[in-house]
């Protein structure tokens, strides 16, 4: 009986090894390839483009005059230079916080109210779709965040500190997962975010459509979920901290090609 068990045990390990002719990473890559053709992010892109041009809000205005850093209404190429400093708000802003500013100043929405709305509801859905379309307009371009303004450099330093800051019941930091190359959690590769992790990886892969829950996630939502996973308090939508982390990752990813909106598990 014992011998039989050993044989079975051997077979389980050996047969397992045979079936693993390709690595787990290859398997995941294959799965992504299969899904690539029908990335539902396209549906959000179409919706976002419509929302950009549609007259909405208390002032019944479109967002077409919104300045994303390349001048009013200039969308193409704006995404790969965000977050950046904006002279009118005197702040470093990422895509979502900038959109909030535009929705407030142009359309008359209450930005604070939208920031407080839970993800996936109300005007947050608008922001998701807009982020999908705006990032898609820069697809294939390379990240090149400006660091000319003192505030931008300060934001980078703040992001760097936040990235390595260990806290919470698990004594965790962003760097715990994203400070080394070649790591993964279950089937998810963990990009090393202290350097450029490569084209379409890490910062260059968000916003993304998540197949597992059928939702479009912007960078803000991704970061908020990182905070949740670390058992940190909710950092707040479009907060300075999340923007600073965006600056840190974005500057590090200089030269990486954006594939956003990407497709994720």
């Amino acid at each position, binding site marked *: 009986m014992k011998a039989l068990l050993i044989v079975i045990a051997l077979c389980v390990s050996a047969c397992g090894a045979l079936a693993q002719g390709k690595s787990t990473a290859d398997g995941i890559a294959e799965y992504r390839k299969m899904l690539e*053709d*029908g990335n*539902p992010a*396209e*549906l959000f892109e*179409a919706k976002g483009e419509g929302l950009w041009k549609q007259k909405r809000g208390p002032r019944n205005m479109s967002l077409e005059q919104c300045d994303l850093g390349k001048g009013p209404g200039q969308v193409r190429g704006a995404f790969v230079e965000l977050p950046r400093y904006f002279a009118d708000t005197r702040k470093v802003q990422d895509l979502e916080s900038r959109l909030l500013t535009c929705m407030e100043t142009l359309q008359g929405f209450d930005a604070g109210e939208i920031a407080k709305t839970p993800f996936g509801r109300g005007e947050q859905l608008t922001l998701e779709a807009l982020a999908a379309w705006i990032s898609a307009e820069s697809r294939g371009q390379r990240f090149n965040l400006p660091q000319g303004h003192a505030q931008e450099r300060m934001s980078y330093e703040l992001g760097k500190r936040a990235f390595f800051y260990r806290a919470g019941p698990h004594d965790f930091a962003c760097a715990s997962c994203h400070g080394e190359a070649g790591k993964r959690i279950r089937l998810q590769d963990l990009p090393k975010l202290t350097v450029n992790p490569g084209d379409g990886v890490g910062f260059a892969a968000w916003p993304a459509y998540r197949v597992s829950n*059928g939702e479009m996630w912007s960078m803000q939502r991704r970061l908020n979920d990182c905070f949740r996973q670390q058992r940190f308090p909710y950092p707040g939508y479009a907060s300075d901290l999340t923007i600073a982390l965006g600056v840190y990752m974005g500057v590090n990813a200089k030269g990486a090609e954006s594939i956003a909106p990407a497709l994720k598990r």
Partner: protein
Amino acid sequence: MADPMRIRAQAAGDKATVRVLMAHEMETGQRKDAAGKVIPAWYIQQVTAQHNGKTVLTAQWGPAVSKNPFLQFSIKGAKAGDKVGIAWVDNRGDQRSDEATVS
């Protein structure tokens, strides 16, 4: 009114490959919301594809199909310039039809 579909149709050789993305919740009726109440089923039941007005595909779908479904199929004999129409009807009776040109 439901959001529009994304339809791409590309001719290669004697057939055209059609790729369709539909925007739909595809709620199974099995899930519960935060308050513990069952979320009512809401899914696409009938899909039809037309090539120049002639029906070439009909499908009966159920709650097992994913949210925002993707459908791919090929039409024999379709050439560039032909019209491909896709229509769906869900269990609430909502419907949507969109058309694309084969390129």
